[in-house]
């Protein structure tokens, strides 16, 4: 462990030393070219400090090696160190630092009250430190020091130093001009933002790319495949193993012939779509339309020569029957080969089949996913209507009409916001059960017709901002309350309604727990739940899973792009709580 601490000190010294060296260089450049911000004397003092720090640290770093594992290795590298400490340990360290900082700050305090506050804060941190140290010790916390090296080539080092010095000179020179200073700041900000959006965007990119990849490209043998490739196929009508198209269970299917039955019918097996694959039935020869199949193209060795061939048939013994395409002199010759001895021909392209296959994989009741879409749409539309109508009505009642017990009822409404869904989850199930609504969509949207506290609260704020005169005018014209609400007031709060509509849309589109509890058959299943089941059933096929996930989020993303403004307003409204 001691060696570990020496390593830690050595590594820190190396890093601090080098940073001090660069600060020194920067200061020197500044003195040479730049506009002096400080007094000359202060500047010299800063240079001296940096030089001293650099000298001490680097000397320390270079004098330590031998016993601590810091000894020079053949390839140049920068030592790295990472203490593996449980969270409580980190908290203890942070507390110590905070206490020190607060105590130092208290000396520079302007007045007594600030001093007192600083000491108070220090005391709190002492408490946190003691508690976390205690927990750290009690849970058998131990510190593991990871020693590492960042390998780095001489060229990189030189390039890096050159770039650093160049940028320092630029910084120093541009610091003379105020406009340039602003520009430098903008550039740095944008670089940071681009890096950030890269990090946030990579999962999306990965999602989309994966949904277009072939299964064999999922495993990174030579790095992650970022440009999707597809297997080349050619249409091929094989006389030995032909494919036919016919109708079966109201769908057009491609079938393979198994045997001719004594009664003249053909016994066939479904090849496509995947959802029916393997199903066998008897068909009349007359209704079968012969179609070519998509034969994958591969390269293989034939008579010691490299040939391009198509896979005519997968044989029962695990081998493949290949039919040569190139070279021309032995074209159409056929031979047998083991799949491991072939190399598929891939070209850059998108495997859009992942999408169609993902849908084909769904059970027949799902009707290629349309059933899921229909259910989700019913859910979304009904929830939207219910939420908007009921929330607006109730909010109007609370904000504009006077009736005994109003403030009391409103307090009650606000307090329901605190109630977690978990409390009412089980009894609600029993209510819907007694109504016979299990395995229907009703439990998922009917409650929306009874106004949720948050939306009412939000809309009430909006109603309150509308001048009373409008309403009074309507009243004088003899409008009923309902008509005033509908024709005068409602149009005034359209933006707020839009925000609520967006949130409701998102909420019902993504609702997962509801269907999980209430829905058990595919006929009533909405998309969000189907995605989870798809992941469960088809977990081994990332291409299809990602394609299905992409399809499930596409509508939300489209709505987002068209109604971005309301999304953003929505977050602000919901978050600030009407501040």
């Amino acid at each position: 462990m001691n060696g570990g601490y020496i390593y830690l000190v050595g590594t820190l010294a190396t890093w601090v030393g080098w940073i001090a060296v660069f600060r020194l260089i920067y200061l020197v450049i500044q003195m040479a070219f730049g506009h002096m911000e400080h007094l000359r004397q202060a500047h010299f003092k800063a240079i001296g400090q940096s030089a001293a720090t650099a000298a001490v640290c680097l000397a320390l770093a270079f004098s330590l090696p031998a016993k601590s594992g810091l000894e020079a290795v053949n390839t140049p590298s920068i030592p790295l160190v990472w203490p593996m400490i449980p969270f409580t340990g980190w908290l203890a360290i942070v507390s110590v630092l905070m206490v020190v900082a607060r105590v130092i700050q208290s000396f520079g305090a302007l007045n007594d009250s600030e001093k007192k506050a600083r000491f108070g804060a220090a005391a709190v941190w002492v408490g946190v430190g003691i508690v976390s140290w205690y927990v750290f010790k009690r849970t058998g916390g131990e510190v593991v020091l990871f020693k590492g090296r960042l390998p780095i080539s001489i060229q990189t080092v030189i390039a890096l130093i050159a770039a650093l010095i160049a940028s320092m000179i630029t910084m120093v020179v541009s610091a003379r001009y105020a406009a340039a200073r602003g520009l430098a700041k903008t550039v740095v900000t944008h670089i940071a933002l681009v890096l950030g959006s890269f990090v946030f965007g990579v999962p999306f990119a990965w999602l989309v790319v994966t949904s277009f990849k072939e299964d064999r490209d999922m495993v990174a043998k030579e790095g992650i495949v970022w440009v999707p490739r597809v297997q080349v196929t050619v249409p091929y009508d094989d006389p030995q193993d032909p494919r036919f198209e016919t109708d079966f269970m109201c769908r057009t299917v491609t079938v393979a012939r198994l045997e001719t039955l004594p009664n003249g019918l053909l016994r066939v097996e479904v090849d496509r779509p995947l959802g029916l694959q393997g199903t066998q039935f008897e068909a009349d020869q007359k209704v079968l339309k012969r179609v070519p199949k998509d034969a994958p193209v591969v390269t293989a060795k034939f008579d010691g020569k490299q040939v391009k061939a198509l896979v005519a048939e997968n044989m029962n013994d695990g081998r493949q029957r290949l039919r040569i395409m190139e070279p021309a002199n032995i074209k159409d010759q056929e031979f047998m080969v083991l799949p491991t001895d072939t190399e598929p021909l891939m070209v850059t392209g998108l495997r859009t089949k992942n999408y169609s296959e993902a849908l084909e994989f769904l059970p027949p009741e799902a009707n290629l996913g349309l059933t899921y879409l229909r259910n989700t749409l019913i859910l979304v539309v009904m929830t939207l209507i219910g939420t908007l109508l009921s929330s607006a009505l109730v909010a109007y009642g609370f904000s504009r009409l006077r009736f005994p017990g109003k403030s009391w009822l409103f307090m009650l409404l606000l307090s329901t916001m605190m109630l977690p869904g978990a409390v009412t989850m089980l009894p609600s199930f029993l209510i819907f059960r007694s109504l016979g609504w299990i395995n229907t969509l009703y439990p998922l949207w009917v409650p929306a017709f009874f106004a949720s506290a948050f939306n009412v609260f939000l809309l009430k704020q909006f109603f309150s901002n509308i001048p009373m005169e409008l309403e009074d005018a309507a009243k004088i014209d003899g409008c009923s309350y309902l008509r005033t609400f509908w024709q005068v007031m409602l149009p005034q709060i359209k933006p707020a309604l839009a925000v609520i509509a967006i949130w409701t849309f998102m909420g019902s589109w993504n609702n997962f727990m509801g269907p999980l509890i209430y829905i058990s058959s595919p006929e009533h299943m909405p998309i969000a739940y189907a995605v989870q089941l798809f992941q469960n059933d088809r977990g081994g096929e990332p291409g299809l899973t990602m394609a299905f996930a992409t399809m499930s989020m596409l509508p939300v993303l489209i709505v987002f792009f068209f109604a971005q403004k309301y999304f953003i307003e929505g977050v602000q409204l919901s978050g600030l709580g009407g501040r």
Partner: protein
Amino acid sequence: MPIGKLLFRSLLAVIMSLTIALAARTPVVVWGVTLGPESQGFQDLIREFERLHPEYEVRVLGMGAGQMNPQKLMTAIVGKVPPDVISQDRFTISDWASRNTFLPLDSLIERDRAKDPLTPTREQYYPRFWEEASYNGKVYGIPTGGDTRALFWNKDVFKAKANELRAAGLDPNRPPRTWSETLAYSKVLTEFNKDGSVKIAGFLPNYGNSWLYMYTFMTNAEFMSKDGRTCTMNTPEAREALQFMIDGYDLVGGYEQAMKFQSSFRGGENDPFMTGKVAMKIDGDWVIDQVARYAPSTNFACDPPPVPDDRFHHRGRYANEKDTYISWAGGFAYAIPAGARNVQGAWEFIKFAASFKGRIIEMQGQASISRRRGRMFCPRIAAQIEAATKGYRMFAPKDPKFAIALKTFFDLAPVSKIRPVTFVGQPLWDEHVRATELACLKKMTPDEALGKGQVVVQRYLDEEFNKEKYPEIDLRLPSLIGAVGFVIGSVLLWAGYKRKRLGRLAQSEARAGYLFIFPWVFGFVVFTLGPMLASLFFSFTQYSVLSPARWVGMKNYADLLSTDRQNILKSFANVLYLGGIGVPLGLITGLTIALLLNSAVKGMRFYRTLFYMPAIVPGVASVVLWMWILNADSNRGLVNYAWAHTVAEWFGTQVPGWLTVETWAKPSLIVMGLWGAGSGMILWLAGLKGVPAQLYEAASIDGASPWRQFWAVTLPQLSSIVFFNTVMGFIGALQQFEGVYVMTNGQSSGPADSLLMPVYYLFNNGFKYFKMGYASSLAWVIFIIILIITGIQFLLAPKWVHYEVEK
């Protein structure tokens, strides 16, 4: 009159037959079986059944119902929309039966015994299989198949290491027969990569299908007492078995290491056993068919699973033991859930499907599809004796390698034990899995781990056997009281309203007002207040919906704090982790982006869209996506690919196991959450825009650095957002459900319970076991904790939250 009666009857008969003919076929809904390209046999079975019974239409529900999800089945049964037939894992049948969720089949058997030769009777089946599907002397399921476990060993791997094996005094031409031999072989066969991860595993005690159960069968441990009232999970025999598993994992560098190794496994032709990455495993007879299908050239053999040394040599307490080898049998049975709509159709289907004829049709179908695809067919062991013996004779593969392997499994059937027939079968299973994991991870000693499981199972047992102590209550009474209370309350309110003596105009306005807010009032009473009171009431009862509720007083709450304390504490500790680390990290990320965006003049909208987009990705889809990105295999997972080429390389360490290991499971959740930090960012942005510019001007005149300005001006101005987001973040962490459910498929609570969350635990108690009372008490605890957290934060708020003074 008789003529009129006759006429009426004949008319009725005509109408009936017409409706049957016209209204087409009554559906028989079957769950628990998946239909796919490989299930030809089952399809043939259905086709034949429908030919024989044209009045029925068999509907096998795929996706969602095809998988065995107890929560789904339970909800469907309780919700009165169950399937007609369920194919159910036998060891859980007594559990379901004890809760009155399955129909007893005795009366149906009695009825048809004489007239229908297909009727299943006890004599036709292997006794143990039949017993496993019965409970309290009644038959609840008709067993279909059986499976036994044997040791698979890859001869090529043994051959490759022949010299080393010989050097260690082991014979490379035969598999281990005792536990100590197994460990010795595994030690020689296991190989490690340079970074310490496993390259080839000799033997992983729990990989394949062995579980602690099988090892305890070998040491003669019993998990249940004879009378079925006491759980005896923690016995010296069981600890001995568990110790063997721990030793087995130690040889491959520990359980976590093994888990990480396993996370890179793939199915099909890349199966680790067939490719020689795992030298030995204990698995079921279905694996032979997989080998025949994907890698028939694998040089493997099956032998009886190794047993404790003393048992093998018939020494010590095994001196009088008849059987040297012991295996374990499980399997499925068809059952009819309570409340099935088409009991007659279901029974007809079960009779046919489980009979000799049905089993043979199914085997024939599977055999023909295998033959057509050029594969060998390996029949499974049928529970029906005639089908099993004749089936083996008719369909056993010709290839001696496979035939001998299959024979091993058939021969093990007589010495196979079954799991105890008890209604706590599922909890017993769950707890034994949990105990194995905790002990293998060395979080607990075998004694502690098994002891903990035993306490939990005992609680279930006591609950059932002590329930007579608690009075049954009629739920109509509290509902009546509630209704009366509601009426009285309304009358009082009405009286209060009348006393106000409003003017005519005011009265009409008030009336309109009440009408306007009626939707909320109604919703509040029906969907909030009612359920809330009901849940409070349930929390003092023991109620499983299907059987009458019993008043247990504070017992549920006492259980939360005593017998179930460890799980509850773990779940709240997990919340604390997510709240304590995840929430601040989310706040910092959001604020950092917002600060950057706030200073960038151009392209702000563009960046804002980009950063915000992940926040609107549907939750389930986002978890599914991240499960792939965080795949522990650095050749597949995006993050670990990057990690392996940077950090892991620099430090010479391994990549993190993310969802597969305990330490990284919660950080995975946090990382997923951080991706959605965009919505927080929008809030911060709005807040930043609201900070008055003159404050910054004043500060910079005073010579404050940007850093100081941030701490002294920006942050205090934003403190209300910090406050709001911390409260919401904590409450959100407390209610975390979706992510955990999707990540674990609702099957477990993550490695070593690292993803056990309160609401998830509540959901499982409520909808998997329908322990409404217990789940309700947990719900109230969560509610109270939320109240406390919010309360504390509101109390502390004035100390540090800066509010603009309203003008």
